[in-house]
């Protein structure tokens, strides 16, 4: 127990401390390296914690305020990993931005410290056992990312940040109301001192909780956290935020933040469906999931900005995951968790590649990026393979989860499959056409002056490829345990 405590403390404290340090010394040349080092330390701590949990099973820490079980520890590990690779990527990227004069040193300092703070908030949100603290952490994550999105202070970025702040702020407020309602219901069962916001306690007594209140609460929580997940029609902030923020931020936004928000929803779903004894929450998630798969697919073909394009594709995949969680059951949950993993790996890899590509072209407009593969084969192939992976092409892992989701859907919810099929077809047609144009053809782009950080890209794609061909046993039963927790 104790060493687990210390590890969790390390996981949570490292980014916080690093953030403080960077807030003070972030203007030094070495800031990027400090950033990377902090992330690495977090990653190591997370890995140790994960190992601990796998061996010892779920555990609550810090007098039950924190709680790690296979479900969230795997997300913690994933978050730490992507955070680390992103920090690696952002070293050359941010230097180039600085050299191009798009960012002052002070902005770099802000970026670095906020990046770490953002990691910290997400890790707290994942590991906390207290729904209230979960809410606080989510709100804090919003605030930090608002600063990150508006980093360039251009009109567009301010606009994006403003929309992001208002929409997510309002959404989060709804989530708070839902949390209050849950407390309201739980307090009548557990009493004021019974830790009525602690998920473990709630989970223990969920069958006694008042159904009407919880269903109401779930609506608020769903709308609230759903806004952050980017569920249609609450998604409108997402594309802008992805397009206007610095690329590393886009990577962590769609790679991690959406996952965390979805994680919150799933936690609540477990409680609510337990209390109602019906499939209410599940149906809600399926409905919104389907909507969220279809609508962005149609947006894709209109996109001019490459990061916006992939922002919409993130929305689509979130919809798919939500749908899968909504279906429930061993296979679907397994698939959803797997899809979470591969999506955040692939999508962040794509954003890395896109970042370099747009720096090569000096623009984010798709039509002005052409023939990457001639100028820099690695970036070109990274973008091409990443896009094919995210479009669900075997042998990449995204296909694995889509295979499970689709086959489960046609077994249990056949009516949903035509919708999914349409969405996937349209998305493929739109996105692949654009990516092909960017990668192939007569080059319009210049080679980069700094050698790009391609290690993260290929590490991610390699992992995704591995997950498509072979899921390590421990990973597999880890997923299984998590899927069982969700039920």
């Amino acid at each position, binding site marked *: 127990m104790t060493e687990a405590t210390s590890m969790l403390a390390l996981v949570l404290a490292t980014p916080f401390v690093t953030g403080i340090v960077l807030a003070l010394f972030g203007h030094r040349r070495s800031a990027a390296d400090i950033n990377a080092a902090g992330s690495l330390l977090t990653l190591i701590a997370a890995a140790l914690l994960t190992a601990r949990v796998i061996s010892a099973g779920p555990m609550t820490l810090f007098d039950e*305020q924190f709680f790690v079980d296979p479900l969230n520890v795997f997300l913690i590990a994933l978050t730490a990993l992507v955070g680390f690779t992103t920090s690696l990527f952002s070293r050359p990227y941010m230097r180039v931005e600085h050299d191009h004069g798009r960012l002052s040193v002070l902005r770099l300092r802000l970026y670095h410290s906020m990046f770490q703070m953002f990691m910290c908030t997400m890790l707290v949100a994942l590991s906390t056992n*207290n729904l*209230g*603290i979960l*809410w*606080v952490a989510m*709100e*804090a994550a919003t*605030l930090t990312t*608002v*600063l990150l999105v*508006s980093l360039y*202070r*251009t*009109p*567009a970025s*301010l*606009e*994006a*940040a*403003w*929309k992001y*702040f*208002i929409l997510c*702020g*309002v959404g989060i*407020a*709804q989530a*708070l*109301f839902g949390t*209050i*309602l849950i*407390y*309201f219901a739980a*307090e*009548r069962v557990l009493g*004021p001192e019974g*830790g009525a*916001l602690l998920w473990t306690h709630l989970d223990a007594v969920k069958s006694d909780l*008042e159904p*009407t*209140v919880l269903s*109401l609460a779930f609506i608020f929580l769903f709308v609230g956290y759903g806004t952050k997940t980017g569920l249609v029609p609450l998604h409108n902030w997402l*594309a*802008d935020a992805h*397009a*206007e923020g610095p690329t590393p931020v886009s990577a962590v936004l769609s790679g991690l933040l959406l996952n965390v928000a979805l994680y919150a929803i799933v936690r609540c779903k477990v409680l609510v469906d337990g209390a109602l004894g019906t499939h209410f929450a599940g149906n809600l998630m399926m409905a919104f999931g389907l909507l969220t798969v279809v609508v962005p697919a149609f*947006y894709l073909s*209109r*996109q001019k900005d490459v990061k916006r394009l992939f922002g919409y594709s993130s929305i689509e995949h979130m919809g798919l995951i939500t749908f899968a969680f909504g279906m429930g059951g061993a296979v679907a949950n397994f698939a959803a968790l797997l899809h979470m993993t591969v999506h955040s790996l692939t999508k962040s890899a794509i954003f890395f590649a896109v970042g370099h590509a747009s720096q090569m072209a000096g623009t984010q407009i798709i039509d002005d990026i052409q023939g990457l593969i001639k100028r820099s084969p690695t970036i070109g192939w990274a973008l091409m393979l990443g896009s094919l992976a995210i479009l669900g092409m075997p042998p990449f892992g995204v296909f694995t989860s889509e295979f499970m989701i689709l086959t489960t859907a046609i077994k249990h919810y056949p009516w949903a499959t035509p919708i999914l099929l349409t969405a996937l077809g349209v998305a493929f047609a739109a996105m692949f056409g654009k990516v092909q144009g960017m990668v192939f053809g007569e080059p319009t782009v210049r080679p980069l002056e700094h050698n790009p950080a391609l290690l993260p890209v290929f590490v991610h794609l390699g992992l995704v490829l591995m997950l498509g061909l072979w899921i390590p046993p421990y990973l597999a039963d880890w997923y299984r345990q998590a899927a069982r927790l969700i039920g």
Partner: protein
Amino acid sequence: MSTALLHTVPLSGQVINLCAALMLLLGFAMLAQRRVLSLINLFMLQGVVLFASTLIVALTTKQSHLLYSAGLTLVLKVFALPYILHRLIRKLSVKWDVETLLNIPTTMLVGIGLVVIAFNVAQPISQLSGTITRATIGIALACVLLSFLMMITRSKAVPQVIAFLAMENALFFAATSATYGMPMVVELGIALDVMVGMVILGVFFFHIRQQFDSLDIRHMERSKDA
């Protein structure tokens, strides 16, 4: 609520119900309000009511941490935020009348509709509320929806933010008087977030002013797909 029921409610409960009613009233007042300065004042009044209700709940239920949160409310919602807002509009010299995207009477009508919905939704919950204050959940929900509506209808940044804070108030009200307060940690966290959020917004306003030389959010409709 029938009179028979009314008599069973102790005085404190009645006062809290009164506060709830005041909250709702203030909500409507803000919805109807055209001038920014008076908006801020109304917001301050809401803070006062919130403080009062929290205090009463704290005294009746003898929960110490509710006292702290009452104090927190006083400091934050009655003094700090209104002060910050005042300074902001002085700095940005925005004393204009608030233009609404929807004319006031319509807004009011919609607001009444929202109240009806909110009460009906809250009905089953109020029935099984163990606390002495039955109606508060419904009223809090109504206030939340009203401030939501206000955010939609206001076309300038500052009123939008005030509406946002009003929503925060409503939530706080629900937390304290309907459920007798969340755990301290949570309340502290919430308060902190609100505070930080305000600061960030303050910074934001200046940048927005620089970029768009106006706080009219209708300037910020560039990035779209339509």
